[in-house]
């Protein structure tokens, strides 16, 4: 089962390396990338400083495998890569990286969009929003 989880934030450098790797795939005409960044939300006058992510890893990877298969069956993709942070990701840092590539743009754009929605709705991952005073609350996806 392919791992999608990375320890801590996803660096801009890591994202570049992933993009650069695809220069040799000369059948690709379009890439679409979604990046989730940790926001300094204000809740009851307290500012979020970081999110601490945990997962039910075995289930998440099985689920991810199923979603991946479904998206490859539905869209004419050349490739798709997904990375999600675990542990602490500070405000302004990247915690989710979805990267789709295809010959024509529609497939990459639509597949990326669907993948992001399915990750948010179907992956057993939880975010704990840690405030600057070190208290916390549990993140709610909308």
């Amino acid at each position, binding site marked *: 089962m392919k791992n999608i989880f990375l320890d801590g934030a996803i660096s801009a450098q890591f994202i570049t390396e992933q993009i650069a790797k695809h220069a040799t795939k000369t059948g690709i005409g379009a890439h679409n990338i979604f990046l989730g960044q940790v926001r300094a939300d204000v809740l009851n006058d307290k500012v979020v400083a970081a999110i601490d992510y945990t997962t*039910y890893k075995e*289930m998440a990877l099985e689920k991810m495998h199923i979603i991946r298969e479904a998206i490859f069956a539905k869209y004419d993709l050349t490739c798709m890569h997904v990375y999600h942070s675990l542990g602490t990701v500070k405000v302004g840092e990247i915690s989710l990286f979805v990267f789709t590539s295809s010959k024509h743009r529609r497939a990459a754009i639509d597949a990326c969009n669907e993948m992001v929605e399915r990750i948010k709705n179907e992956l057993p991952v939880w975010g704990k929003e840690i405030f600057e005073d070190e208290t916390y609350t549990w*993140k709610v*996806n909308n």
Partner: protein
Amino acid sequence: MKLKVFGQLVDLIGSNCIEVIDVNDTDKLIQQLQSKYPLLKNSKYRVAVNRNIIQSNTILKQDAEIALLPPFSGG
């Protein structure tokens, strides 16, 4: 039987893994948990058996992998 606990339910239950005994289906599991942790009644969560979310009462074999999942908030 071990029960894995995730997210905000770890705070409520006080552990990310507890032992449950004398339950052979998920309805009984939920009854037992709700009587031991009454706040669970006010919580949103789903039960996964062998890494699949169950939709209705499900038999629990001795080697079942059971988990309590509060609403997901990844991404």
